């Protein structure tokens, strides 16, 4: 394996409150300016999705997703320890977020 290995610190927990689709996102940064906690900064590469600089500060209000003009460009991603479950009544099958 020739992959370069770097001295990164641990990612924050939760680490990824928002998932961007590079195909759908145009880097308009409306979401960056909607966020009341200001967790994002614009990407230094114009047209790219923003950088979530402070992921652990996200309040998960979804305002960024609501105001995004391109459906599917951002998805809210719940922390792994906070994904609610449900059961299908007819079959008894279990599902989760």
């Amino acid at each position, binding site marked *: 394996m020739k992959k370069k290995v770097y001295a990164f610190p641990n*990612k924050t927990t939760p680490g990824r409150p928002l998932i961007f689709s590079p195909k759908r996102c145009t880097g308009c940064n409306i979401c960056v300016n909607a966020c009341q906690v200001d967790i994002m900064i614009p990407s230094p590469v114009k047209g790219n999705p923003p950088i979530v600089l402070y992921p652990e*500060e996200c309040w*998960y209000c979804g305002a960024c997703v609501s105001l995004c003009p391109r459906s599917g460009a951002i998805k809210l991603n719940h922390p792994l320890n906070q994904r609610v479950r449900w059961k299908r009544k007819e079959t008894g099958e279990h599902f989760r977020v």
Partner: protein
Amino acid sequence: MDWNELVVKKGLPRWPYPVRYGEEERISADVLVLGGGIAGCWAAISAARGGAKVVMVEKGATLTSGAGGTGCDHWLNTPNPCSRVTAEEAVEWESDFNGGYVNGISRYIAARESFETLLEMEKMGGKIRDTGDEFKGAPFRDEKTKFLFAYDYESKYHFRIWGSTFKPALYKECKRLGVKIYDRIMATGLLTEGGKTGEKVVGATGIHTRTGGFILFKSKAVVNCMSRYQRNWSFSTEWKGISSWRPPQIAGDGHAMAWRAGVEFTLMEISRPSSFGSGYSYPGYGVGNALNTWVPCTLVDANGKEVPWVDRDGRALTSLADRTRPAPGQKFMGERTTVYKHKRPEPITDLEQRVKKGEFVLPIYADLTGMPEYERRVIWGVMVGEEGKTKIPVFRTYHDAGFDPEKDLLQSYLLLGGDPMRGKVLPWERTAGELGDAGGPVVDWNLMTNVEGLYVAGDALFASNYHNHAAATGRYAGRKAAQYASNASLLRLSTKQVKEEKERVYEPVRREGDLEWKEFNIAISRVMQNYCGEYKNDELLKIGSIWLEDLRENEAPRVCADNPHKLVRTLEVFNVLTCSQMILHASMARKASSRYLDFLRLDYPEMDPPEWHKWVTIRIEDGHVKKGERRIDYWGDLAENYERNR
């Protein structure tokens, strides 16, 4: 590209906004509204309509910020033409429930003015009734007005609303009226006449959250709409994630600023264990339950056996309709109360014992599939969907993951750890501001404090709560502030006071340090858990004071911020510290226990002795903390005083 990729490909990025530490900007106004949430927007609109030149300052982005930014499902406790409930009764049931510890002034203002406020919301573009006829024929709908009601379908005084439409409409109206909105500014201090504590307010200071620039506001009147304090007993970004009930950046900035300016406060000693405050909680409204937003949903156990609902006498109900109408002889029901007179039906409260006996099998689920279609669609679609923090995080996210309310039973976390509202929590993980009523500035019938020209509205008010209350009090305080401003002038800012504030706010960026804001917050919360937790006595509270002062003197100077965003986060935590110190002062001053305040003094164990049924007040005077008191009903006759002052 995530952070790691960015650093590898582009190197460590410079701060993307111009850095303007120390650079000053000056702005003046007739009425300065601090906080751009529901109360702030209503105050700004009202003051502008009153002819004032209005400036509104918001730490985030007004369009969707604050607790009500992304929606609201219910406009509570609002007497209106469809209902026989009076304004006095609307205050009375809350007062009974809280043992008299309610803000009679602000709650009565809300009871009298909420309905006209709601109609104005509609004029601005908010959706307040079932204009699409989606619920024609439903028992909670009034056919003539198309209003939808919640909790008590007969008394019709809690409205179901499409609150996700409200904030954007308020924002638009602010702009239309010429309100100057300054987003991304954290208000940091109040400026007073001569720079003296307790004197008339003349303006405020702020810093830009992205550039760190310093802003000086000069104004004739100020409205504090900065909500409450939180994070005093519990803080963790790792644990809490999505479960944080209020926006995490609501840190008590308004309270700390007002305290430093000499404002008198009351009820800072109240607190309760907070299920939202724990790290075990799931998304609010996003679990199977039968409370609040989810009333009157059926709960079932793992085998589909229904968990009975009982009336206020503990008798099992036989029909769904009984869940949402008063009992024989009961005039109306409160949204939530333990007082018999206004108590609502609810699912059995001895579920845990009956689970242990084997009568019900865990886990419990909310059964929307078994509800009539109109209930299912109103709970999952109007309530969950329009309530704040539900449209995307719950309604859309669960839908995208395949949840279907017609087919699926949503997991309840009752007894499993994780129920946001009823989950058992450690008794020292408490909150005042996150959920329920909290302490705040003492106000008069103008909603003005002892600092002349400083008004308060919304959740910043002591012993009050709710979106409609924020709207109604914001509207009231705005018009009062405009009236005051029309007879006032802009006064000189004290150079000394400005200089001191400027030094204070920039300290964390000037120095090198080894601590950051998160660790400092958690240190404060540890002191509060141990010394101001479930058990209190003089000795514990004094030790708690010593250790908070120690944090202030020894650790605060080591907290540093390496960019404007972190500077804001750091200043917020210093405000958390100030509010925590206020809590200790108030706790020491109340020398009696109180069931209503969930306040247990081991050295004064008698619960609610009559001589302590009053408001305990605290404020800074001549550099010292002065304690005082007010009669429990210091506002006098509600109707009479409201009519005289409005």
